[in-house]
């Protein structure tokens, strides 16, 4: 029908509008870029929002130090191709400074990202972080604002969020306070994959089915890497797998899959029976409210 946008065009237009509001209202924003599929959608949206100009913000990666090399290479190549500036804020630097203290050397590092993020926000004076979170990911996200207010300590207070009406966004903050802007709030995992297909976005290779050494642990497939070795009594298998999300090695698990193209992943996503986080984010299974808790502590 003429004059009626398809859902992907509508979602894209909404996301462009949100990004331009950030650029128009905030003095010093930054875009959080991990090399993951959601943040790659954000980069394409930023291109559509600001080209032929430069992005009115740098990109920033919160690096846990536990990365798949493919993703880091991809991150660096992508940044170079776009000609934009990348800031890498490293958890290992926070550990060296003593602001992050791990309980044990092999403890998953995802939840400590908040500390490094808040340090980087303070150091660079950012008043807004653009992130790729979606409301369909988790129930603590279902009530998240598109422009979410964080206080001086980076905390999210669900009872003290600004009402958000029409497409009017209030990104005003005092010094030290922060806005987290989520342009793809209204996207589902399926929307993300369809957008990747439509825009022919390149992704890190680990999103596609490949052979990998894994063990089965507590019902999850755990990849065997330098930081996640197999226990002596575990049997290592070489399996066809792909990753549905890309994060810290210690808490991101792949799924068994033969889908080696975006098209096949879409078909698999359509028939999948398990949510993205339930299947592949080992850290969200700990407690029913763990995402809500992490967000209150400054997580994006």
């Amino acid at each position, binding site marked *: *029908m003429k*004059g*009626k*946008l*398809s*859902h*992907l*065009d*509508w979602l*894209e*237009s*909404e996301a*462009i*509008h949100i990004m*331009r*509001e950030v*650029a*128009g209202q905030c003095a010093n924003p930054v875009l959080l870029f991990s090399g993951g599929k959601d943040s790659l959608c954000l980069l394409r949206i930023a*291109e*559509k*929002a*600001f*080209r*032929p*100009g430069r992005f*009115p913000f740098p990109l920033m990666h919160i690096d846990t130090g536990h990365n798949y090399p493919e993703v880091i290479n991809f991150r660096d190549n992508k940044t170079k191709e776009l000609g934009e500036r990348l800031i890498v804020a490293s958890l290992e630097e926070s550990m060296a400074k003593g602001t992050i203290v791990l309980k044990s050397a092999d403890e998953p590092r995802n939840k400590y990202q908040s500390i490094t993020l808040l340090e980087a926000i303070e150091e660079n004076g950012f008043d807004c972080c653009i992130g790729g979170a979606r*409301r*369909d990911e988790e129930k*603590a996200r*279902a*009530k998240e604002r598109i422009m979410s207010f964080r206080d001086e300590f980076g905390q999210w207070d*669900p*009872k003290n*969020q*600004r*009402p*958000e*009406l*029409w*497409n*009017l966004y*209030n990104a*005003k*903050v005092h010094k030290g306070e922060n806005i987290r802007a989520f342009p793809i709030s*209204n996207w*589902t*995992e*399926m929307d993300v994959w*369809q957008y990747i*297909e439509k825009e022919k976005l390149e992704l890190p290779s680990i999103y596609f089915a490949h052979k990998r050494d894994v063990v089965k642990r507590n019902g999850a497939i755990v990849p065997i890497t330098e930081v996640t070795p197999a226990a002596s009594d575990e049997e290592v298998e070489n399996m066809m797998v792909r990753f549905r999300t890309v994060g810290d090695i210690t808490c991101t698990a792949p799924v068994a899959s033969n889908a080696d193209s975006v098209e096949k992943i*879409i*078909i698999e996503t*359509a028939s999948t*029976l*398990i*949510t993205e986080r339930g*299947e592949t984010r080992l850290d969200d299974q700990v407690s029913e*409210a763990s995402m*809500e*808790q992490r967000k209150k502590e400054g997580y994006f």
Partner: protein
Amino acid sequence: MNDTNQNNTVLRFMTCGSVDDGKSTLIGRLLYDTKTILTDTLSQIEKTSKKKGMSALDLSLITDGLQAEREQGITIDVAYRYFSTGTRKYIIADAPGHEQYTRNMVTAASTAQLAIILVDARKGMLTQTRRHSYLTKLVGIKHIIVAINKMDLVDYSEEEYKNICNEYKSFASAIKLEEPNVDIKFVPMSALNGDMIVDRGRSLSWYKGPTLLQILEKIDTTEKTNSSFLRFPVQFVCRPRDSSNEKLHDFRAFMGRVESGLMKINDKIKVLPSNHESSIKEIRIGDKIITEAHAEQSVTVSLNDEIDISRGDMLIHEDDTLEGSKSFTANVCWLSETNLTPNRTYLIMHTSRSSKARISSINNKININTLETEQAVELKTNDIANIKFKLAQPLVLDKYSQNRNTGSFIIVDETTFHTVGAGMIETIE
């Protein structure tokens, strides 16, 4: 999740009702029967249902909220849910419906094209049914579905259903709900048993109309609310100043979303509030050059003349008589816990432009239970009042009844920066 169609349209709707009406069960049912709920979520719900001693799956747990809410046993905020069918992507705004949550209802309604108003078949029309209907009218929703739920508890009685429909119709005509252009549909259902939501079920065979989902699938979502006048608020000005690239050296373009109307190449336009005139040279989305842009499209526009334009300016057609104004009245919903202070200065954010504003007068306040107007000197949380404003700088305003995007604004406290009010413009001076 089971839909791979790339060309769905989007339908945004809200659900009005309290926990007792089966609102959570209805949403749970929509998501469950459209196969949006996946195994791990479902197994969590099964566990909790058992823990609560329930024999069947408690679908209302699907929309179970935050820890803070569970502790207090209430819903405090609007939640957004998603599902897709072969034809549409749906965004549900799920708002609590009690009287003290008027602001959440208004928030949810502001982005909705359609409202489902739940009525408990045992109880019929209640004060809250009237309140919810009034609020959907106030916020300009053009499609209403009155869902008469819990039919299983009145033995699926056709007579009960018809009585409630008739009662609603006479109420609707009393508050002129159908004017202008609002269509109202009725459907009997049992969210608990899944009758007439996605599947027809077996117990309502006397009802020959469409199921709830069939109504949602067929509703024409072409926005009836907005006029066809071009409204293009500039959000951002693009100036690459790239001296290495001759084409980009002097490139200047204006970025924004078409809020209403149609913009074509060569169209003569003027810029408000400066009134400078020019014409459209180029329209693009990213690298793609297009010949026209219509409502809801975010585009980048360049003009044939070099005129001074910045964020907050509005592009309209040259023959349009619209002007900036500094005085207007609006229906305001007060959102803040702190009362409105009539002699304070507030900030009004409208499209991409803001202005300081003062309150000239509070004309009246609406009692949302009786729907009568009353005198008011102050406004507290959840109050709705008609207010006259005076602006420091002109804003380019439309009446809300003619344009939801350029007829709405938010009120911001200049000290705390909180969003304290939401307004819908009624008259412009």
